[in-house]
C-alpha cells in the first residue's frame, strides 16, 4: 500500500513571494505518478502539476515547479510570485502506473495555504 504524508497543516506567504510545500511518500512501486492538486473553497479539485517517476527532470508549470527526489521519496511544490488566487488547500497525491487500467489516487492530508496581500 502507498502512503502520502504532508506534515505541515498550514502555511502563509506574502503576495509575490515564494513558498514551498512539502510532501513525502512511501511505496514499493517503481513506476508511478505524483501530483499536486489545489482545492479552493468551491471544493473542486484542480490539477496543478504532474511528475512521472521515471523522469529525472523536475516538472514545471508556469509559476509552479516541483523538487522530486526519488531516492528520498520526497516531492515538494514551489510556488513562485504567489498570488491571492493561490489561497487554497493543496494536496499531494500518488498514483501507481498500471498500463491495464486506470488507477486510483492516494492523497495526503493536505495543507492550507494563505496568501497575504
Amino acid at each position, binding site marked *: 500500500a502507498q502512503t*502520502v504524508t*504532508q506534515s505541515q497543516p498550514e502555511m502563509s506567504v506574502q503576495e509575490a513571494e515564494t513558498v514551498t510545500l512539502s510532501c513525502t511518500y512511501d511505496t514499493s512501486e517503481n513506476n508511478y*505518478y505524483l501530483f499536486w492538486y489545489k482545492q479552493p473553497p*468551491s*471544493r*473542486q*479539485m*484542480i*490539477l496543478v502539476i504532474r511528475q512521472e517517476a521515471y523522469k529525472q527532470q523536475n516538472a514545471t508549470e508556469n509559476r509552479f515547479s516541483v523538487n522530486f527526489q526519488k531516492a528520498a521519496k520526497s516531492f515538494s511544490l514551489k510556488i513562485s510570485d504567489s498570488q491571492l488566487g493561490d489561497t487554497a488547500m493543496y*494536496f499531494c*497525491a500518488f*498514483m501507481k*502506473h*498500471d*498500463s*491495464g*487500467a*486506470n*488507477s*486510483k*489516487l*492516494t*492523497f*495526503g*492530508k*493536505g495543507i492550507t495555504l494563505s496568501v497575504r496581500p
Partner: protein
Amino acid sequence: GAGVSQSPRYKVAKRGQDVALRCDPISGHVSLFWYQQALGQGPEFLTYFQNEAQLDKSGLPSDRFFAERPEGSVSTLKIQRTQQEDSAVYLCASSLMGQGWSEAFFGQGTRLTVV
C-alpha cells in the same frame, strides 16, 4: 456538459435514512471514480468504474455503500441506513481513458451531513 456535475450539492439526512448521490461525468469519459473526503482530510478512494464495469470497490467502507454506473455514463452512489460517520464530502472524478494515465477532472462534490 463542460465539466463533472454532482447533485445534490448539499444533503442533510437523518440517521438511518438512505441517500443517493449522483455524478454526471464529462461526456465520453471512460473512467469514473468516487472519493470520500472527511472534514480536514484528503480524499479517500471508494470505487472505480471503467465504462459500466465496476473494476475496484475495495474502498467502500461497508456493505451499506453501493455504487452503480449501468450505462457507462451517469453514476449513483447509494448509502443505506446512514450513520453519523458517513458525514463527509463525496467527490466524483472522471477521466477520458480507461488505461494508463489521463487527467482526472473532479466535480464540486456533495456534502452529506447525517444528523
